[in-house]
């Protein structure tokens, strides 16, 4: 199986003596869904933000889709990766001054230089896939949180990425809106997308993840298949975290 992401000994520190990432190593295979869990401040967000160069590394080596992305990477290298790695944020981060359609077709037109008509056609198709085709001509502020997050997913998918990163995609949503976003992600996973998902949704992790990685204080505590992780976690720290979550 081909490896999509290979990280070795990643170290990242915001302030001296306190490592947000403290020697993290992992591999994500193509087509795999990896769910990253852990208490807040455990470094899980920082970790996935290194995968597309939003965070720079202090040391360690990182390989994303065959491109090196370590401490001394170049701006151009990062942009090459970002075209192939999609990301969805906790706060959606849609562009409020652009319509839903323009939000989605912006990058295909400006970055991939696709024709406007083709990009908009693709955008409509993706909105259809997300079940919100009728929102195409509205603006982000007119949509509910769940709808906005589905637009954000469509926007990321419009570049036809090989890997999708999700940084707590449902944490800012009203409880009754969580399901529609998780459903869209489930559908994506079924389609064989390589996904790294930071989330607190235990049900999603149990059902969709191929592996669950548990992090604490910048380190990987354990990586297991979901069955093992949820019923019979190896480490005491994982078990304590799970007991607090349930």
């Amino acid at each position, binding site marked *: 199986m081909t490896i999509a992401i290979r990280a070795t000994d990643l170290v990242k520190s915001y302030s001296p003596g306190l490592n947000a990432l403290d020697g993290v190593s992992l591999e994500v295979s193509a087509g795999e869904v990896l769910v990253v869990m852990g208490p807040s401040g455990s470094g899980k967000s920082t970790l996935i933000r290194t995968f597309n160069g*939003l965070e720079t590394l202090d040391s360690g080596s990182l390989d994303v889709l065959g491109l090196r992305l370590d401490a001394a990477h170049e701006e151009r290298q990062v942009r090459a990766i970002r075209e192939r790695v999609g990301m969805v*944020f906790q706060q959606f*981060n849609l562009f409020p001054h652009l319509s839903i359609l323009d939000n989605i077709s912006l*990058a295909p037109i400006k970055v991939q230089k696709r024709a406007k008509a083709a990009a908009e056609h693709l955008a409509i198709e993706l909105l259809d896939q997300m079940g919100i085709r009728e929102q195409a001509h509205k603006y982000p502020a007119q949509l509910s949180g769940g709808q906005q997050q589905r637009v954000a997913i469509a926007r990321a998918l419009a570049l036809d990425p090989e890997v999708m990163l999700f940084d707590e995609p449902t944490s800012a949503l009203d409880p009754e809106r969580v399901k529609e976003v998780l459903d869209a992600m489930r559908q994506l996973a079924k389609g064989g997308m390589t996904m790294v998902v930071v989330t607190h949704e235990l049900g999603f992790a149990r059902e969709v993840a191929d592996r669950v990685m548990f992090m604490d204080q910048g380190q990987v505590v354990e990586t297991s298949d979901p069955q093992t992780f949820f019923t019979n976690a190896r480490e005491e720290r994982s078990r304590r975290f799970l007991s607090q979550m349930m």
Partner: protein
Amino acid sequence: MNRWLDRWLTLMLLALLGWAGWSCLHWLWRGADWTVVVTNLPLYAVGSYPEAERWRPLLCIVAVVVLIVITLLGTRHGEWRRSLPLLWSAMAPLGIWLLAGGLGLSPVGTQSWGGFSLTLLLTAGSGLLALPLGIVLALGRRSDLPVLRGGSTAYIELMRAIPLIAVLFFGQLLIPLFLPPGVEINRVLRAVVAFALFAAAYIAEDVRGGLQAIPPTQREAAAVLGLSPRQSLQLVVLPQALRVALPSLTNQAVGLLQNTSLMAILGLVELLGISRSLLANPAFIGRYLEVYIWLAAVYWLACTAMALLARHLEIQLDPVRSAR
């Protein structure tokens, strides 16, 4: 007891206000002699522009007024609406061509430009120069490059610490001293440039405020989509920042229009300059009140039109409202 005092005071104040209002109206209607304004309307509009060519500045003013009316009250028909930005941006070059001549029109030197047409030109010209410069300064002040940041900050702080009138004097009197003999920069151009340099510092701070209002996550979202820093600025950050800054930019524009009156001190015959030269004419001696009330009304009208336009633009740019 108190209640009676209240009533009495209220009545007295009302009577006072009524009396003051009535005597004002009475003066405007009966006491004032408006011949000074009425006979000199062409002068107010176009200054001492050659009589045969007066239609040019007049056409300029009429075009602006028509454009304002169309923009504010125009039909909702899409075709017309979409050509409005184009019409507006064509207005400045058209105005300069009409006033200066050339390309088929007989050239008219800037010394004969004057009146409302000159006021319009000074405002539009300096505003159009100052806006891009202000945006560049605002971006420079937020730059990571120390030289750029330091330079922009120093420029902004320096310009804000100097009174406008000093900058204008510098433009009119000092710059020619530094130029080699024989080289002369046009007076109107000097005024426009000095105005623009001054206004840019204030515009830069308004734009910087707008830039600060855009959360860094917007830049992040743009970066993650593979947009270059320049594309992110151009397509994501600036459009939002300028919309946030629009109310303060309107403030600057209105201020700019009013500040063009300072040019009268430097000898340009824009609205205030015309008024001063009229008052120096023995035929109109002592007509200060009439002239200045008229002047105030003209400025008020122009500034109100500007404020209405800005308000209109704000509504147009509000995505949610214009989508409905």
